[in-house]
């Protein structure tokens, strides 16, 4: 469904963030992208929806070459790619509902969005999603009144209301505590399974990635150095990705908290 073909990004400063990245993701597959800071994980997912303009190579989504689209067609293509951010990137001074509905901006005209006259079907969907992520009672709160976990749930709802085929997830848990991190990862993976979405999840936490995904891609200095199942991440491979470290001791199996979403909603 998504195919990255020799994707390369060189920044104006001369730093090469990505070198000939080759990646194929079938429909409905959740992929974790791991690698040290500066490996090019954020650049990679931003090159897919062209928040960062790739230098060369192609991104093909369902047969459309995104890298060649003009501004208007790119906006249409972006509607099918939901994005979730590390620090939530909610518009802090807008309400939860406005933040969720902003996921529909690609579908409604300027004046409709300006006066917040969204179609009732969008509003219905927004309420459904807020209920699904456990925040239906928060619709009228301002985004900056929410806790970290709650904000990330709003971010997830905003991405899903776009009706995407692909989720681009940039460090969803890096600003969250371990328990909330797990709840958020579980929620993202459940939602992907429910809706048959493919997803690329950038993540620092190798143990967390291993817990939830079917496939792990390791990135080091802009190059793919591992692509395989999560349990194939041997200490040798981790050393290759991150550098020398006592992996047996640090990547011990982490206990999964047995809490459900209802509890997470109040967290």
């Amino acid at each position: 469904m998504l195919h990255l073909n020799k994707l390369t990004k060189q920044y104006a400063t001369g730093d090469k963030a990505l070198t000939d990245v080759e990646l194929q993701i079938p429909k409905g597959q959740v992929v974790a992208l791991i690698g040290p800071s500066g490996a090019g994980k954020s650049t990679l997912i931003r090159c897919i929806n062209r928040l960062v303009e790739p230098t060369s190579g192609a991104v093909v989504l369902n047969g459309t070459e995104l890298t060649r689209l003009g501004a208007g067609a790119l906006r249409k293509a972006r509607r099918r790619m939901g994005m979730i951010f590390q620090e939530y990137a909610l518009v802090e001074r807008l309400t939860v509902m406005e933040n969720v509905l902003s996921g529909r901006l690609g579908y409604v005209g300027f004046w409709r969005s300006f006066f917040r006259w969204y179609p009732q079907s969008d509003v219905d969907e927004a309420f459904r999603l807020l209920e699904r992520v456990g925040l239906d009672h928060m619709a009228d709160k301002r985004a900056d009144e929410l806790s970290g976990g709650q904000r990330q749930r709003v971010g997830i709802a905003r991405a899903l209301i776009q009706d995407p085929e692909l989720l681009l997830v940039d460090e969803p848990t890096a600003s969250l505590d371990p328990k909330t991190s797990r709840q958020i990862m579980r929620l993202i993976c459940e939602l992907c399974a429910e809706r048959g979405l493919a997803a690329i999840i950038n993540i620092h936490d190798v143990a967390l990635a291993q817990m939830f995904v079917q496939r792990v891609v390791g990135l080091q200095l802009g190059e793919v150095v591992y692509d395989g199942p999560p349990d194939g991440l041997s200490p040798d491979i981790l050393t290759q990705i991150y550098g020398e470290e006592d992996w047996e001791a640090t990547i011990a199996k982490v206990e999964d908290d047995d809490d459900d979403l209802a509890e997470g909603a109040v967290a």
Partner: protein
Amino acid sequence: MAVSIKNNGQKIWQLRDRNNQILRWFFLFIAVAIIMYCWQKISSQTEWFFVWDAPRIAGDIGSRALPPRWSYIDQLWEPLWDTINIATLGTLLSLFFAVPVAFLAARNTTPHPVFCRWPALLIIVSSRSINSLIWALLLVAIIGPGIFAGTIAIALRSIGFCAKLLYEAIEEIDEKQVEAITATGASRWQVMAYAIVPQIMPSFAGITVFRWDINIRESTVLGLVGAGGIGLQMQSSLNVLAWPQVTLILLIVFIAVIISEMVSAKVRAAII
């Protein structure tokens, strides 16, 4: 930062090393010398007779200015109302131009970093470099005396002020929110309305009431050059040496400024 090592191997840390310290004392010495020279110049060119006389003259004017001529207030309500209108309409008019200029001048929203940004900066600088009293002088000559000239003068001066503060606010927004809205497939205008405008709203409101507050003060003097408002009464009272009337006008202006200050503080508190 200076780190030196004593004979016994102990590390000494001082904020500045010795040469740096001496250089600083030297510049301080020059600065003091310049100030003393200027002081002496000013002193030799002052007619000290008038200065020693000042308390007596001030007392004399004071005794003639008090008590204020309260009955004169009947003639002040209308010019006071004009003054407030000049300030308010001038501020609104300036915002009409300042907002687009600010978006053109901000690095992160300008359509072109040279062809749009530089003209916008030029507008800001030229508006700011000329005092509203000078604008009023020019405009009274061009469009004739009256409230209209005053309003335009206030507006012209305020464009630069508001646009400058606003474009600085635009440049300081959190780009991640812009990124997030862009990623949904929103258009340029939608990104502006959803990601940028909510972030600059508090500064916008703060700037507006702050400028309005300043404009109330500025419009009280515009009448001195014939551009309407309470300054006109001030001018005519000064011309006939009617000190009790001047006192009353100053008192009224003082109260108006206090009230405007209170209003703007309230508005700012309410918006944040």
